[in-house]
């Protein structure tokens, strides 16, 4: 218990009941990095998709920050209590994508239409709900012991449903990221190596079976291959990664200047306001800008990881781990596909890509990290 008992004692104690925002307890480094990344994202979205899109992204950012703040106002204990309800709600939300309310984009049925022309991507929120649900399940009730087989099985069942649902919706990218999140949470939760190895092996078999039986759609396979050898399919999915690499490479060290990238402005890279937004960074802000994005992402991951390390209990730690794993894996997958090192799957770059769902979800993640941090502060001792 030694590490978890380490406490920051600097926070002044308030009176009992719901305390107001305690600015001193906020992680200002994390907030600064997330804000900086989000604002940079607004500029990039404006460059890729036009000023109007940038403005909408900025409004989404303000809304996302507000939602994130509300999350920090939740009573930490009630979060765990609400976990099953959140989980259930998120699954219903994901299922909505398959109703007439659902919208299909780029072959993936992963969006839900809202009034006024807005769409929401339920899988973004499903990830968060899953993080809380898994943390609640694997943290157990009796302190920090290795989760027993039953608990692990329970966690796997909880994880399997949303993964299956996004796969059915053809959202391979989200499925990959969720799998990564689940793996990270189980790993840190102390699930035995035996389980982990077994799961990895059966996962591999499942993928093989999926490929062999044609369960994986053709375009999904093409995408998977295209990143390895883009010239095999230069007009289809290979084109995206070729064009993205061209854009990034042509940025050089300093970039061609914001709003001045020829490939970005000419629309040569497909979906460069969301899936391939990193190509805009590379072309217009160059190596320097790209490293800045990676660096800011790194700061967010570091601060989140720190919060996980400092968490008061297993539940809180696992929530933080889930959020960090989500940010980390999704950023890696997104930036990696723009650079041609990971398969082309449609996932957003957290904080940067255009899209209200993505932005709000990211800031809910920041809110959750703060919730963990606040829960871990001495005043709650």
């Amino acid at each position, binding site marked *: 218990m030694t590490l978890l008992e380490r406490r920051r004692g600097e926070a002044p104690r308030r009176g009992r009941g719901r305390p107001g925002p305690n600015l001193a307890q906020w992680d200002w480094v994390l907030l600064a990095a997330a804000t900086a990344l989000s604002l940079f994202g607004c500029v990039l979205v404006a460059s890729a998709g036009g000023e109007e899109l940038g403005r909408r992204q900025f409004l989404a950012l303000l809304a996302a920050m507000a939602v994130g703040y509300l999350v920090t106002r939740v009573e930490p204990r009630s979060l765990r209590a609400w976990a099953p309800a959140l989980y259930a709600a998120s699954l219903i939300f994901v299922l909505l994508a398959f109703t007439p309310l659902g919208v299909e984009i780029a072959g993936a049925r992963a969006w839900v239409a809202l009034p006024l022309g807005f769409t929401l991507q339920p899988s973004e929120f499903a990830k968060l709900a899953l993080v809380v649900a898994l943390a609640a399940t694997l943290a157990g009730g009796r302190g*920090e012991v290795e989760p027993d087989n039953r608990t692990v099985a329970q966690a796997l069942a909880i994880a399997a449903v949303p993964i299956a649902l996004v796969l059915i919706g053809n959202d391979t990218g989200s499925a990959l990221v969720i799998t990564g999140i689940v793996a990270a949470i189980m790993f840190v939760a102390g699930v035995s190596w035996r389980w982990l190895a077994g799961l990895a092996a059966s996962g591999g078999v499942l993928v093989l079976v999926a490929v062999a039986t044609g369960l994986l759609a053709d375009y999904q396979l093409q995408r998977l291959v295209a990143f390895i050898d883009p010239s095999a399919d230069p007009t289809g999915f290979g084109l995206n990664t070729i064009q993205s690499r061209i854009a990034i*490479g042509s940025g050089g*060290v300093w970039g061609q200047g914001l709003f001045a990238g020829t490939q970005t402005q000419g629309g*040569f890279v497909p979906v460069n306001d969301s899936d391939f937004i990193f190509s805009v960074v590379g072309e217009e802000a160059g190596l320097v800008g790209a490293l800045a994005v990676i660096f800011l992402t790194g700061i967010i991951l570091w601060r989140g*990881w720190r919060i996980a390390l400092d968490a008061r209990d297993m539940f809180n730690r696992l929530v933080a781990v889930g959020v960090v*794993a989500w940010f980390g894996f999704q950023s890696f997958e997104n930036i*990696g596909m723009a650079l041609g090192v990971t398969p082309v799957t449609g996932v957003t770059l957290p904080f940067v890509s255009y899209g209200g769902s993505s932005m709000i979800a990211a800031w809910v993640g920041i809110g959750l990290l703060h919730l963990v941090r606040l829960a871990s502060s001495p005043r709650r001792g």
Partner: protein
Amino acid sequence: MMSRTTSRLLLLGVLLGCLLVTLAARTAQLTVLRGPDLAAAAEQNRLRELSDPAPRGLILDSSGLPLVGTSQSAAVSIDRKTLADQPDGGAGVLGEVAAALGLTVRQLRQRLTPCSEPDSPPRPVCDDGSPAAPVVIATTSAGEEQLLRLAESPGRYPGVELTATVQRTYPLGSITGGHVLGYLGEASADEVAATAGSATPLAPADVVGRGGLEQQYDADLRGEAGQRYVSIDAQGRVQATQQSTAAVPGNNLITSIDATLQARVEQELAEALRRTSSRKARGAAVVLAADTGRVLALASQPDYNPRDWVGGISERRYQQLSDSGSLVDYPVQAQVPPGSVFKPITVVAMQRKGYGLNDYYECPPDYTAGGRTFTNFESEAFGSIPLRRAIEVSCNTVFYRAGDRLWQRGGGERADSGEIDPVAKAAADFGLGRATGIDLPAESSGMVSSPAAKYSLWEQRKQSWCTAAKKGYPRVREGNPAKADYYTALDRENCRSGNRWRQGDAINAAIGQGLTTVTPLQIASAYAAIANGGRLVQPTVARAVVASDGRLVRAIAPADRGEVRVPAGTLRFLRTAMTGVPARGTAATAFAGFPLQRHPVAGKTGSAQVAGSKSTSWFASFAPADDPEYVVVVMITEGGTGGENAAPAARGIYETLFGVGVDAAFPRSGPPEAIPDVAGVRP
């Protein structure tokens, strides 16, 4: 327990750190190490060089009348790459474009096939341009309204572009002038590569002259295309023009062709061809200025109409033209035996060897030498006649004997092949056996029958002669042993001694038969030398290159090909003798009723024998005989005797030259000498 999850958390942190480092390293690799390459690829993505075609120069007749004009028109082109990038491979776009233009998808597909592909349709249906360049599939001639329909919705048909293009117009309906004028075609990939780096490089979509003056003076007429570098977006929409240079219009070409005369010449030749009632008949007519060699009219039949090429020629039409022999420029390229129009040259050889021009010569019906009998046309006989009369009635036997005697005096078969035959020498002096150097493409040089020619022919063919003699024509032998024996004997003879200049060769050469072949243009040039006192002229079509603002760029003077070195008296004799041909000789019927007193015509008919078909009809002439201004040569294959077919056509041409019964081509005095001011001429 806690230490276990903490150590695992540490591991997770390390993993995430590694992922971030991977991304950073890869970014650095792309931007720094591969940056320059990828930046170049980005430029290629984005920048397009567009060429603004220059208005092509006009081709004008000697009085400044435009024979070939130019107009800018719109053209629809298709970019194959963009088309291929469509999810359906462009099938949808092609279908809609075909429907809008009233074409079939198959036609479009054929047009889009590069000529380099193995199963491509024949030129010019297939695309001979650069594989990367858009292919023009239709021009305004296809119907303006249809093109505009395509242009209205640019985004709707990816890869389809509406561009400006230069088109030729032919303002004069009275003439076709196919082979003189030529036509335009798109530059082939080879031509683009060949001109790269030159002063006038070709761009892939450029048109170049094909055939005739269009080809010969292409560099003058073409002008310089303007260049525009435009940046485009992924849909190919132009976003900005980076830089541009304006197109420089091509220069105008003033020719010595007279439109009125050309029309009459084409008409006379076409009629002469009709008279033959042979589908295989081919004709040529040449009108030169006797002193300068300037070409006043030049016709070839059957010919093509340059209008056929405007907006692209159809595969079917091209095949028709090719099958009907319309793509050969007969006055310049036909190599046919001259027959009796060669006789004046034999006269020159005779005079050089001491024959008296005013002596009398025997004209029996036939002449036997070396076991062979050579006859006159229809075995006519005239008894003892002066040389002048031998020319008028075209008595072969007079010239057979002369050829035989000259051969014997030269040493007969004992003469080695290096020995210069006097008749061959005279023919060479008059420019036969080599191209005249006319400013039209692909001129043939013909051949002069001579010991050397025979030897080199034998060297080329002896292999096949000897092989055939050895085999003995087994196929022919099955049906006709006698024929096979004859062929075999002939081949054996040729194999053994085909290199020898024999008696029969010399006798045939004296009347323009045997190995001798000429182009109508060579005969015109030779007759011009007789007419003008011995100067060998170079037939020349162009007179001047004039800038579009009227400034003279350069005058084109016919090159001097030297003197034929024949005594003035001999030439005078020939001029006088030949006036008798239309007056009372072989062309008398054709010229009956023509005012020869006022416009004396000197000429010579020819009926050249061609193995296996009707003889080639010739009439070579000049007028007025006392001070020749014009040379007129007409040649018609399958045309029978010269008097029958070629001479009547020549007579018609003289009617226009002198204004007999029709308006004269040159109402003042001869072809204009001053270069007309064409600064304001626009067709």
